[in-house]
């Protein structure tokens, strides 16, 4: 096999160069933070299989590609972007192509809502908005997150003012074009819901072309007291893409966070969700669906930290494996000593449809308090032969029966996507994927 093209030092030097080129504004303190992050990255290096968190997920190929952190000279037709928009009306829209904000394609006028790009906020030296940057993620506990902090290029800053309740969703669309080939994109999002705010966010990662690139994303979500966010997330980049998402959630008292996420694309994708309760009464629900087909690796890591009493969390992740697909699932629930009356339940079900697929799943419970209700469950199995027989006796052929059952398996998660068009579209993608895997 090939050696990694770039060393940790090369990446760090590239990061330092990137920082040096930043326009000097009032954001000096942020520049310092980036330098610290670059240094931290040098210390941490890239993760390796000896680290428990990366035991099953190799980054060898990713490093061999030697994706460089640079800005792309994107060329795309507005139409190609617009055709990807959600079909229903939205309360606001932020569009990024190759990691950079596209003002003309975005829609940022909404009362009580700040919808802006990280670059513009940094250029304006808006310290108030940037204060929260890194408040949940820190400088980065692993190399990629630190590298993101050092070299973040742009991203969404969404702030919903206290008491504002949005009926329509906010769309956050991230597209990659041909110009991103060989690049490492470093988006960084910050989403803040103030007290009693309520919103729906639809966040999607799509490819306009099928070139190799690496998306190294960090997203921080700060939920104020009594706020409510329904987060719908789709990762559907092209099969050559590498995608790493690191989500950090902070929930204040009575805050409610509901996530539904689908990982359908990218050859290599990993999503880590860190959820931390910081005051009682908050609730967090995560639902996820992943499809791993030929040449795909899908990795989900959940880290649910019950740091305070009286919070509840529920996680339900389902996976379908076909061809030579590989899936990794790690769901950790930590209930700290003082977190009495915690309620946490996690479930992970996997459907293994191919001889060459592999699933490595590891739910974990770490319980340090006693008055809790916690559980987790994992299954790996196949389609029920009797159910197939039943459908076939009704005249469906083998493939139709299989597909129908798989869709039924997936629908529990898909139903949590509120947008009809999106749900239908995802259903269609899954149907097609199952069809190609059956013929493969």
């Amino acid at each position, binding site marked *: 096999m090939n050696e990694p093209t770039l060393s940790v030092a090369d990446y760090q030097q590239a990061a330092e160069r990137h920082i040096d080129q930043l326009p000097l504004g009032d954001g000096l303190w942020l520049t310092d933070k980036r330098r610290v992050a670059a240094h931290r990255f040098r210390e941490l290096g890239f993760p390796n299989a000896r680290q428990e968190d990366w035991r099953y997920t190799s980054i060898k190929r990713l490093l061999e590609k030697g994706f460089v952190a640079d800005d792309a000279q994107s060329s795309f037709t507005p139409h190609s972007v617009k055709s990807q928009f959600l079909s229903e009306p939205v309360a606001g829209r932020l569009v990024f192509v190759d990691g950079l904000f596209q003002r003309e394609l975005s829609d940022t006028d909404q009362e009580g809502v700040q919808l802006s790009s990280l670059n513009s906020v940094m250029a304006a030296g808006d310290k108030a908005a940037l204060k929260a940057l890194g408040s949940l993620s820190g400088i980065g506990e692993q190399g990629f997150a630190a590298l993101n902090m050092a070299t973040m290029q742009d991203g969404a800053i969404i702030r919903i003012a206290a008491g504002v309740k949005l009926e329509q969703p906010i769309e956050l669309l991230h597209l990659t074009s041909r110009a991103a080939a060989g690049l490492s994109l470093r988006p960084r999002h910050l989403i803040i819901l103030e007290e009693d705010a309520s919103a729906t966010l639809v966040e999607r990662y799509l490819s306009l072309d099928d070139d190799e690139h690496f998306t190294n994303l960090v997203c921080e979500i700060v939920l104020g007291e009594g706020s409510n966010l329904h987060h719908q997330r789709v990762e559907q980049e092209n099969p050559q893409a590498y995608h790493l998402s690191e989500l950090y959630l902070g929930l204040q008292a009575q805050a409610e966070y509901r996530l539904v996420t689908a990982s359908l694309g990218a050859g290599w994708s990993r999503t880590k969700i860190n959820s931390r309760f910081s005051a009682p009464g908050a609730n967090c629900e995560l639902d996820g669906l992943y499809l791993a087909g030929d040449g795909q690796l899908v990795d989900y890591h959940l880290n649910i930290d019950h740091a305070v009493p009286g919070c509840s969390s529920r996680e339900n992740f389902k996976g379908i494996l076909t061809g030579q697909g590989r899936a990794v699932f790690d769901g950790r629930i930590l209930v700290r000593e003082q977190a*009495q009356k915690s309620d946490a339940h996690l479930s992970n079900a996997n459907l293994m449809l191919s*001889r060459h697929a592999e699933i490595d799943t*590891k739910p974990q*419970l*770490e319980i340090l308090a006693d008055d809790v209700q916690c*559980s987790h469950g994992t299954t790996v199995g196949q389609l029920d032969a009797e159910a197939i027989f039943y459908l076939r006796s009704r005249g469906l052929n083998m493939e139709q029966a299989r597909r129908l059952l798989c869709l039924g398996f997936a629908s529990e998660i898909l139903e949590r996507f509120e947008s009809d068009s999106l749900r239908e579209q995802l259903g269609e993608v899954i149907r097609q994927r199952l069809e190609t895997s059956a013929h493969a």
Partner: protein
Amino acid sequence: MGLPDSRMDELIQSDYTQGFVTQIESDTLPPGLNEGVVRTISARKDEPEWMLKRRLAAYRFWRTMKEPNWSSIHHPPIDYQSISYYSSPKKKADLKSLDEVDPELLATYEKLGIPIDEQKALAGVAVDAVFDSVSVATTFRESLAEAGVIFCSMSEAIREYPELIQKYLGTVVSDRDNFFAALNAAVFSDGTFVYIPKGVRCPMELSTYFRINEAKTGQFERTLIIADAGSYVSYLEGCTAPMRDENQLHAAVVELIALEDAQIKYSTVQNWYPGDNEGRGGIYNFVTKRGDCRGDRSHISWTQVETGSAITWKYPSCLLRGKDSVGEFYSVAVTKGYQQADTGTKMYHIGKNSRSTIVSKGISAMHGSNAYRGLVSVASGAENARNHTQCDSLLIGDHCTAHTFPYIEVRNPTARVEHEATTSKVSEDQLFYCRQRGLSEEDAVSMIINGFCKEVFKELPMEFAVEAQKLLAVSLEGAVG
């Protein structure tokens, strides 16, 4: 709302009733470990040259290894040079009957409630009592010999059955398997060897009581059980140790081999000194136990009740290599005081139609820390492999912890693997219900705990099941009942 804390604490602090030191003259090597010590051990046991070579190779390899640190247990670093690696009661001789055994030794067993002669007469259990590191009393040899069963100490087996030892020893847990297994391979003092010939159903339950008696003596037991084709054996291992203020290291290795259609049932009740309520002293129990279902339709089941030791660190595992082979793991682990347990199992599904069941019950009280760590692995050739895992944790008091770390690795699409785990405290509704029926709080909790562990206890041979229930009641006296 449960018991008030003060009452709870008072009740929890039941003393270790098996804590006493027997004064017996013993022949102990000075602390320290080097090649000389390994040679001495081998020489004292009149071992053949090939055994010494093996020990030395294991020792040399061990020196290149690092102590593992991945588990959730914590302890001060162990100074391997401050441990004495060999201790044997001086009055060692070929004893023909129990009358020849040191009366003081027999008295020790009686205090523990294991009167050998009584068991001999009543229970029909052959007891190979290991007092420190050398077997001093072996009973029922004749009737076992009649059936062709070999049941003897490991040192004897090395001398008498070298071909079996050379063929099987270290084939399940290699001398380089892990840090503690390598240490054991280098310095193991003694242990038990069992061979059940083809088609023989062992006429009685075999049992060894381990005792650690000599202060500062690490105990390095080595057990090897071979069940030849079509045979059956049930083996009981029970442990108690006297009260002691210094940590004692125990690094045993147990290997089970089941050939075609053979079944091995291995049951453990472990009640070594857990340290006092401030977390001082207690046994470090770092054990490697592994069973190899080598033949088709072979069956190995591990049942364990772990109430003792300051630290328990063991994962009785099954290599399910044969077609239709079955692996089982039933465990109750109790931690109180400052006890730590990191235990679980590994089920490697390699053969077609292999099945495994895991039932693990963890109970934590006071500052106890209890972790289930397990692996279910299904290799690509293991058609129709089946696993069901159930791990439940019960928490008593708000300073204890319970962790569950199951690893599931599946590479075959016909596999069905299920894992479930729950963690909660004794339900107040259940308590209320029992109290309302006139049960005292203690009895109510005891009843609930026993119900919680029932699935595991019912797997134990009857005498053991009774002992285990008593042990649990004593261990958790007051913590819960």
